[in-house]
């Protein structure tokens, strides 16, 4: 199998580079031509980045042993905490809902 190159493209000046796809090419010259033709011929890109796949360092497994939900982008919900509090107080539901 020929080497694989990852291609990133920028739609217009100032925009962020986004992953466009990947191409297989025997060397950089072929990769450049193929990237141009696949991701540039329709005027859909203002610039491309061409990166050999071996140059990409993949990271995975993001440890969160202590469930620090407040650091997450979607925030953390009160649901679980409320359930615990209700169980503790022996009530199923307060008259007035708690303000979150």
């Amino acid at each position, binding site marked *: 199998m020929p080497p694989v190159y990852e291609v990133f493209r920028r739609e217009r000046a100032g925009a962020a580079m986004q992953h466009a796809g990947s191409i297989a*090419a*025997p060397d950089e*010259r072929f990769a450049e031509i*193929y990237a141009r033709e696949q991701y540039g011929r329709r005027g859909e890109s203002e610039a491309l980045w061409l990166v050999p796949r071996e140059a990409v360092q993949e990271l995975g497994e993001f440890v969160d042993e202590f469930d620090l939900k407040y650091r997450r982008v979607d925030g953390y919900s009160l649901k679980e905490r409320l359930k615990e509090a209700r169980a503790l107080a022996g009530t199923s539901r307060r008259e007035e809902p708690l303000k979150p």
Partner: protein
Amino acid sequence: MSDRVELLLTLADDELILGWRNSEWTGIAPFLEEDVAFSSIAQNEIGHARALYELAARELGTDADALAFDRPLAEYRSAPLVELRRLEWARTIARHWLYETADAIRLDALKGSDDTELAGIAAKIDREEVYHRLHAEMWIDRLLASEEGRPRLDEALEELWPYALGVLDEDLRPKLVTRVETKLGRPLPAVEAVPRGRHEAELADLLEEMTSVRRSAPAGARW
């Protein structure tokens, strides 16, 4: 017909017929990336043909489609090199490279023309041809660098070299010889050029196929 129109039709016919021939690889090129690239190059050539036909059509009082599709075979001015049907990759690449090299020499001469419209369109076409040449040359380098590729390229060149010479007028041929020999690193045999003006038998089939949609529709149909 003025010399200018003859020149425009010569260039346009070469680009149209080669574009058509190259597009015959769409879907069956050796691998996917090459399929996309070679098809895109074919589309570019046909785009160049269209622009050139439009200039000629203005002088002749007709339109680009009529020039591309409605002329009898004998009136096409394409070089026999572009007419050959060669469904074999090494020959296709050899033809592509020989044509692009010859075309660059022809465009260079046209860019210096006193006719500013001609010089302008030559410059515009050449800006796209740069990438066609990069594509052709990287393939030639690759073929030259491999034990399998070199003999296959040599065999293709032996067949196609007389045709390649025929793309250019006699005064420009020495430049083609120099460029091709420099790239190959070896001299080429002195051979008779296959001249423009006669056509390969395969051209009739190509025209039959290429014009079939046009002929099937009533005149004036719009697409």
